[in-house]
């Protein structure tokens, strides 16, 4: 090993996989070897068994579906509002001066702390779950998009002006395309955060979803189910990340050229 020396893609996969093996091995050693009480941590085999039971007999697929729909719904809502606002803020400095202080403040309001209020306002239905994710993501996206658009290379903007572009043309044909890959990256990143919010939203006042299953299992001290639920969240997150990345690469081929 030398600093910054690259690895081959085969090695990369092998190393990445090796850590998962090591992780499961340690977990098995601790649980199957009797070093940790079954009450606190289920062993891998029990976890798989519980997982199968969840999927086959307790309709866990429905819970997974509900959670995905909430994340995607709340996140899409946030993106639809945040991206245009962020672009406006990045492009027009007065708009930025008007909104930036508030958005910066709102960004630090913890979404999970809004749950009691949101239950009061929107009940414990789907709207409340969507709102938690919305509040958690919208301000982050606005701010990051505004920074990205505002950081558009000035010389590209000037070049476009000398080519006869109008102010609208600058936004449509310079600011937007030059920020688009960054905006897609921002959405990928914040989607990951949205997954945290959805589980928190489902832990309180919910009758379906992965988070709801986890609270239920806690009452029954079924650590196998809890761990299975957490792993499912991780896998879905990983999958959505890969899909997002592939989609971005397909959308912006000029970046990889």
């Amino acid at each position, binding site marked *: 090993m030398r600093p910054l020396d690259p690895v081959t893609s085969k090695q990369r996969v092998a190393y990445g996989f090796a850590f998962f093996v090591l992780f499961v091995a340690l977990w098995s050693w601790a649980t199957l070897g009797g070093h940790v009480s079954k009450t606190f941590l289920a062993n891998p085999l029990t976890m798989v068994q519980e997982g199968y039971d969840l999927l086959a007999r307790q309709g866990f697929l429905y819970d997974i579906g509900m959670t995905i729909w909430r994340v995607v719904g709340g996140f899409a809502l946030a993106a639809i509002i945040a991206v245009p606002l962020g672009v406006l803020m990045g492009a027009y400095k007065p708009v930025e001066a008007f909104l930036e202080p508030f958005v910066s403040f709102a960004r630090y309001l913890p979404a999970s702390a809004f749950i009691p209020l949101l239950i009061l306002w929107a009940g414990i239905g789907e709207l409340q779950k969507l709102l938690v994710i919305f509040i958690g993501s919208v301000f982050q996206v606005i701010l990051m998009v505004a920074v990205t658009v505002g950081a558009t*290379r000035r*010389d*590209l903007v*000037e*070049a*476009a*002006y*000398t*080519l*006869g*572009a*109008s102010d609208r*043309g600058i936004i449509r*044909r*310079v600011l937007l*395309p*030059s920020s*688009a890959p960054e905006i897609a990256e921002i959405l990928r990143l914040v989607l990951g955060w949205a997954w945290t919010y959805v589980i928190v939203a489902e832990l309180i006042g919910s009758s379906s979803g992965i988070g709801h299953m986890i609270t239920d299992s806690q009452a029954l001290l079924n650590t196998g189910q809890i761990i299975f639920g957490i792993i499912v969240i991780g896998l879905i997150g990983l999958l959505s990340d890969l899909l997002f990345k592939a989609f971005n690469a397909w959308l*912006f*081929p*000029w*970046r990889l*050229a």
Partner: protein
Amino acid sequence: MTTLRIEQVSRTFPARHGNAPTRALEPTDLTIGNNDFVTILGPSGCGKSTLLRIVAGLDRPTSGRVTLDGREVTGPGADRGMVFQSYTLFPWLTVRENIAFGLRERGVAQDERNKIADALIRQVGLSGFENHWPKQLSGGMQQRTAIARALANDPKILLLDEPFGALDNQTRALMQEMLLGIWERDQKTVLFVTHDIEEAIFLGSRVIVMSARPGRIKAEINVDLPHPRSYKIKTTPEFVQLKERLVEEIRTEALKVAEHA
């Protein structure tokens, strides 16, 4: 007929952080006639780029005015094509789309756009690279595309701000010949800023020498070398004589800058 008039144009950058305001450009007069190829030569910090940016409409003069065919310049526009020193191709557009950018902004139909772009691509020697992205091009090829992009609008005047400054010597010499070839064939009005003495003489019909701190026009020298010019002209006695004269002019200016630094 194109006439660019620069009348008493000056530029002072406002004071910042307690520093005194900077006088980048003293009131300057310059008239550029039809099909003139004028090079502005000066050390860095002499306000030559500032002057060019004011002509382009990217900067406003503190006093004075610029008129193009009698109309005052108040902002950037397609009648003044500009090529920058930095690589300013739009990275998300192919070579052809980059060249057609201005045409598309002005609502020219796709077929017409492609026809104009492809003709320019041939002219600057980029055939076969129409669908490449800027990232896949060398520096010289990127600047060729930038020149073609500025020419696509058929501007009244072409403004170039040290366009070959970042290129290696060999590429730079080829680019100079290419640009001069376009000018000799199509007769364009050109204002070209550089700090390279040889480049200023080789390209220009007139060399404007600027002094530093404050920036102002110090001398104006006609270059009566015959056209078409090839690279071989750079070793003729006439060329060398002009170069010697300009070296002296520039050297005193560079010394002034060094002393004030």
